[in-house]
């Protein structure tokens, strides 16, 4: 009951925090000496990436709990986290691409290990949805999707190493990217952005989950009445 009450409050605070983040990132934080204006995308790109990882991790955690303890509730939760993760993953690719264009003049660079990792993960999780919607609803589908979600998190570190290895020899890195050197204000702005985006993901998760649960309840109601 209380969870339904605090959602609007949460949503508004998130909006506020996001607004503050945007202001801080675009206006207040000092401009980076090396990269100039384009560096500001970094304030959003990195938190979005970190949030995507978090969403995939939570999706896998819920999946593990589903297999261990069971419960249809966890299936919806796992699915919603993965859905959010995929959205933020797509945003990571987009913001990363914008940053690449602004920094180096190319929309895509295989040398950017982070982006390549996200591309692989994006493909993997898109397949998750294809898998989910091609199986009849029920306990079988829940379990199969949960197992696939677990494979996803195992893939993250393994792919990371694979891409590193690939860069080392197969595709020698053309552009070396170092994280920008951050001053105090910059770091502060970064933290605010990170908090805002993580909160945004959580709010979106809650909203989507409410929608899905309502759907499920409606369906059950329709059946009982018929």
């Amino acid at each position, binding site marked *: 009951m209380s969870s339904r009450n605090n959602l609007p409050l949460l949503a508004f605070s998130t909006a506020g925090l996001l607004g503050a983040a945007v202001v801080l990132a675009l206006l207040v934080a000092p401009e980076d000496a090396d990269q100039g204006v384009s560096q500001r995308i970094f304030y959003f790109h990195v938190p979005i990436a970190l949030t995507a990882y978090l969403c995939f991790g939570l999706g896998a955690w819920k999946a593990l709990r589903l297999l261990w303890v069971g419960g249809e509730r966890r299936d919806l939760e796992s699915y919603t986290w993965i859905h959010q993760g995929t959205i933020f993953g797509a945003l990571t690719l987009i913001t990363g691409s914008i940053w690449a264009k602004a920094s180096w003049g190319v929309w895509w660079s295989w040398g950017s290990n982070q982006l390549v990792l996200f591309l692989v993960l994006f493909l993997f999780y898109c397949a998750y949805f*294809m898998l989910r919607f091609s199986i009849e609803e029920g306990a079988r589908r829940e*379990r199969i999707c949960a197992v696939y979600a677990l494979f996803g998190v195992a893939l993250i570190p*393994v*792919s990371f190493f694979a891409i590193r290895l690939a860069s080392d020899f197969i595709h020698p890195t053309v552009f070396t990217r170092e994280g920008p050197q951050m001053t105090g204000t910059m770091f502060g702005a970064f933290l605010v952005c990170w908090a805002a985006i993580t909160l945004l993901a959580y709010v979106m998760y809650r909203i989507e989950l409410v929608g899905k649960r309502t759907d499920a309840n409606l369906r059950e109601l329709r059946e009982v009445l018929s």
Partner: protein
Amino acid sequence: MSALALYTADVVALARKDLKLELRARDTLPAMLLFVLSTLVVFHFALPAGTGDDAAFGLLWIAIVFTALLGLARAWAPEREGGALDGLVLAPCDRSAIWLGKTLATLAFLGAAELVALPAFALFFAPIDLVAVAGVVLASIGICAVGSLLAAMAAASRGREVILPLLFLPLAIPLVVGGVGAGISPEGATYLSFLALYDLVFAILAWATFEYVVTE
């Protein structure tokens, strides 16, 4: 008999069953052999003159991955025909034994295809050294371990064979990196260790979770 001995006996019985079935039906293995050969020939025509041996080696890995997919698509076909998967699941044996038996059989078929592909590659394109072959062996283990579980998932879906490549390819990317790296990099050993790591992580994961893929 001890539990381990029983488990091994189950796995062996199941793997032998698959080998026997393939020897009789003879539809999957010849297809894989022919497919891998044809693909290599296509690569010759696809590669412009002057392309290095390294590029060709990369294409060998594409041939291996897609040949494996061909075999994996039919991996659970005998079980589907008579509904035998239910029969196996009902049996008192460990469900992971079903996965392991199937993985070993699929590995045997993929290995047979590679026994043809590697000499053919050496003949058509460039010689292969021992490290490259070790890479092929290690990656094949990973391919079959992950692939047979994913194929069981795909069997439960309406998309059937269509969905298997979608599930498999992202997971195959690290294997391709490892395999190609083992072949062309001077630090082949690093890539071999990476492949061993992949095999360990994903084989354990597949072994532990297969039960949940085939039961409700």
